[in-house]
């Protein structure tokens, strides 16, 4: 993997937020949600970003896709610094970076049909017309394992797993290179989670996608990632390959996270044995 080109290089990323309203606003210090975060992503690679709520992982993701403007640092995407890029140039780059959100119930417009939801990015970038659009939408549905007959239905007619497939199809519409996935399976039922994880891995292979995969579930992150970065209080405390993070964690916080991880089998209960 190290011989492949670097798609994304985040260097010294900082994001501060102004304090809430009221009188405190003038005097209270700004909150530093992301504090000097650096990492690299190579083509075809999955970097898992793990940590607990409030650690800054989602803010980092939002800075990468420029839903948020970083306070400081560089977000280098194939030679362009997104952190400082102006609106017009950003628009062009946006086609190549897409995001999949956690909640497929909240992130799809309920008034649009599945066809319209997937077609929207194509229309925005002028790639829908001339018969190409409808063809592309059908191709995308097929790619994510939905039937062509589904395209005239609305999001509420689907289960959570199917909705997340629609969200993935939409994210892939413009042929992105980098997909930022923010907790893409944590709202899904156990039996459906595995389907969507398999789908994401198949798509990565087929389309040579690069993933920034954000999650709190350590087992999910271990399964899907080539490398893992552990975040705490706005900083990356440790980066490494899954085996290294799980079997030889160097940072005390990583060890704490692993110790808190739920067991997968009752025979692992401390001080208790399987009676059989």
């Amino acid at each position: 993997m190290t011989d492949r080109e670097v798609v994304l290089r985040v260097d010294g990323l900082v994001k501060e937020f102004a304090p809430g309203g009221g009188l405190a606003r003038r005097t209270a210090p700004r909150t530093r949600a992301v504090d000097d975060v650096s990492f690299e992503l190579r083509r075809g690679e999955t970097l898992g970003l793990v940590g607990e709520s409030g650690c800054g992982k989602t803010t980092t993701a939002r800075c990468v896709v420029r839903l948020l403007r970083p306070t400081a640092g560089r977000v280098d995407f194939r030679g362009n610094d997104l952190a400082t890029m102006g609106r017009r140039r950003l628009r062009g780059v946006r086609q190549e970076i897409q995001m999949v959100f956690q909640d497929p119930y909240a992130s799809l417009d309920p008034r649009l049909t599945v066809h319209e939801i997937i077609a929207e990015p194509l229309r925005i970038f002028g790639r829908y017309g001339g018969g190409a659009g409808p063809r592309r939408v059908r191709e995308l549905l097929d790619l994510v394992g939905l039937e062509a007959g589904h395209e005239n239905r609305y999001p509420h007619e689907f289960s959570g797993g199917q909705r997340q497939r629609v969200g993935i199809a939409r994210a892939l519409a413009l042929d992105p290179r980098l997909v930022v996935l923010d907790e893409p399976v944590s709202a899904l039922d156990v039996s459906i989670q595995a389907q969507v994880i398999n789908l994401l891995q198949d798509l990565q292979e087929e389309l040579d996608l690069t993933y920034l995969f954000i999650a709190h579930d350590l087992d999910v992150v271990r399964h899907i990632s080539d490398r893992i970065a552990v975040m705490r209080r706005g900083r990356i405390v440790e980066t490494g390959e899954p085996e290294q993070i799980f079997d030889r964690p160097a940072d005390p916080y990583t060890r704490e996270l692993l110790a808190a991880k739920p067991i997968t089998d009752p025979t692992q209960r401390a001080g208790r044995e399987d009676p059989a």
Partner: protein
Amino acid sequence: MSGDAVLSVQGLVTEFRTPQGAVRAVDAVSFDVRPGETVGVVGESGSGKSTAALSVLGLLPPAGRVTGGRALFGGRDLLAMNPEELRELRGDAVSMIFQDPLTSLNPVLTIGAQVAEAVLVHRDVPERAARDRAVELLASVGIEDAAQRLDQYPHEFSGGMRQRVMIAMAIANEPKLLIADEPTTALDVTVQAQVLRVLAQARDRTGASTILITHDLGLLAEMADRVVVMYCGRVVETGDVFSIFREPRHPYTRGLLASRPGATAGARRLPAVPGQPPSLAAPPSGCTFHPRCALSQGREPCRRAEPDLLPVDDTGRASRCHYHRELAREEAR
């Protein structure tokens, strides 16, 4: 079988009124909870696991109605009680912990007032004594400086601390039965581990029998003595937690266990359960799991006849699968 049970749910049926007509959310569900044991009820969204608990507690939303069955608790049928009798019972002999403590706590009352209230509703004690008891309860769930924090409001507590408050309130009157519905789902991993520990301690200290409702198999691995697996409103498998994890005898249980990323170290593809969860409004014919089941391929009985929940051995394990014996043979190899 049910003679010594703290709670014996027998043939519970719960229906919801919907624009498409009555939908059966819980269908002939039976299980026992014995003294001091923790029964884990596991299932995915729509499986009926929470609805079954709410039915037993008389807390169904207006569209829901219990249309059959009994729930015997101390010789009395909870399903036949009037609202007044149920109110007396809830928070006293039977108490509950829900997923989201922020919506279960009153935002405009102090934590102290709410914990004391949990005592005062059911016990004729002076307010002073209730307040002392509140401090004791909060301390017992690991809230430091409990006496000082009594006058704080829910928003001044973190999610994990609020859930500790809920546990304190639930054990205020030493319940015989504790029902915890996804008690740690909204919490972070490290906080989840702490709250789970507090819950286990509270259970052990009060000796309460516990029903733990969850979608999280890890929680069962950690806490349950016995497991009830629900799918599409029905119990599809029951048994002690060790047997269920070692040798699941229903294809759905087996699929759930195998599809966890943590269970298959090294495998590139997860063995996912194919298909989508069934619609309760139009459940599949025969065995409700057959459209997603590898075992049912080309087998007429699965499509035609719903299997009964029948014992698979003499240890109290039961499975609702025509071909559960094949799963046993596979495992034995």
